[in-house]
């Protein structure tokens, strides 16, 4: 039975933990709003871009298509781009991405493919380092970046394209968490090289429009494909940012509630033992008086 002073200390320490988790929850809520706004602001661009690029890609498929679209003709070497957060304390956010990437990597290795990994964000790297350290080719550190911008995405995309052109890999897939709601983030794997697009809906009005292309269809495709990779990476970064804050918010909300429950329990225990001590003293006094 812990004594009164221990209990009191314990209650104090849980109380200060609760203050911290509460503050983190509020910070995450504020950041979540900003991240969600950023994700929404980026959506029109990505949607239009993919629609146009998808149309172009569908009409100019064939042997002459750029490698970024048609691939190298092989799928031996896979590049997995694992995007996670720079910080922890956000529930299963980082683990769910790492788990998905790990499953994919193991599956690829089991089928005789070569796996390379590029990690964005410290936490994913830490989780995957033990099993896949020798496959890791690079790490992008975004911890000094406050608001993820298109420049960051472009940097990652250019690096990927450069490696692709050097023949380092055949297929690139990015792993990130798609923001669904505060309590639900969906780990997503998306192939970015060779580019894959949702086929335009049949009978859609836009698909039937015949465009004039300047300079030329192939020229535009060649310029746009690298930007397409950057756009997909950027969308993933934004979704990830919103998911991270959402996950942290709900994790901290749970932690705050747990701390509250714990304080209640400890307080009851404290009061009980206080009463026990008082009762004990009374018994001692009374039995002492009776003995006289």
């Amino acid at each position, binding site marked *: 039975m812990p004594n009164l002073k221990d209990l009191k200390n314990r209650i104090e320490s849980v109380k200060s933990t609760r203050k911290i988790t509460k503050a983190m929850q509020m910070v995450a809520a504020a950041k979540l709003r900003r991240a969600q706004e950023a994700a929404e602001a980026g959506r029109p661009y*990505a949607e239009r871009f993919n629609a146009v690029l998808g149309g*172009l890609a569908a009409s100019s498929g064939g042997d002459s298509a750029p490698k970024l679209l048609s691939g190298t003709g092989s799928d031996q070497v896979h590049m997995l781009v694992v995007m996670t957060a720079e910080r922890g304390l956000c529930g299963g956010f980082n683990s769910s991405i790492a788990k998905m990437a790990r499953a994919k990597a193991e599956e690829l290795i089991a089928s005789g493919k070569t796996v390379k990994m590029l990690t964005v964000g410290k936490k994913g790297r830490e989780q995957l380092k033990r099993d896949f350290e020798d496959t890791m080719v690079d790490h992008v550190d975004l911890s000094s970046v406050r608001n993820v911008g298109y420049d960051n995405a472009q940097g990652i995309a250019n690096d990927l394209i450069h490696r692709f052109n050097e023949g380092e890999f055949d297929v690139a897939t990015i792993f990130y968490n798609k923001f669904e709601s505060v309590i639900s983030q969906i780990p997503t794997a998306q192939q970015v090289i060779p580019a894959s697009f949702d086929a335009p809906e049949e009978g859609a009005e836009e698909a039937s429009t015949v465009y004039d292309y300047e300079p030329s269809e192939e020229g*535009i495709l060649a310029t746009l494909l690298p930007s397409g990779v*950057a756009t997909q990476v950027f969308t993933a970064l934004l979704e990830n940012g919103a998911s991270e804050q959402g996950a942290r918010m709900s994790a901290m909300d749970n932690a705050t509630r747990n701390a509250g429950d714990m304080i209640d329990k400890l307080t009851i225990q404290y009061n009980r033992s206080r009463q026990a001590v008082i009762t004990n003293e009374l018994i001692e006094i009374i039995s002492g008086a009776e003995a006289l």
Partner: protein
Amino acid sequence: MADTMQFDLVSPERSLASLQATAVQLPGADGDLTAMPNHAPTITTLRPGIVRVESPEGNAEFVVTGGFAEVTAAGTSVLAERALPVSEVTQDILDGFVSDAAAASSNATAENLDELAKRTVDIAAMASDLGLSVKG
């Protein structure tokens, strides 16, 4: 009304403009063009330059550093990699464009050397249109 069309200017980070316009001047990669309502459907890449929008409420100008434009009979959308209103362009931002272009040129390959050199020239031309100058 057939004399206006929808104009959208979006960058990856935000949507800058969405309004009814009568004419839009675009800095196309193969030369400037003006899109008006009922223009033939066109997709063009853009070079660094200024997008001028004429609308019933007044004119607006935006600086873009590349990207592409999709013109249809009903509207024009510009998807720019970086875009901002002309009034927000300062010498510092311009210097940033110039140093980005210079950095890209310095590790250019034989194939895109021309393209990158053209980019630097385009930025200089844009700067003089804005009444700013490119250093060095």
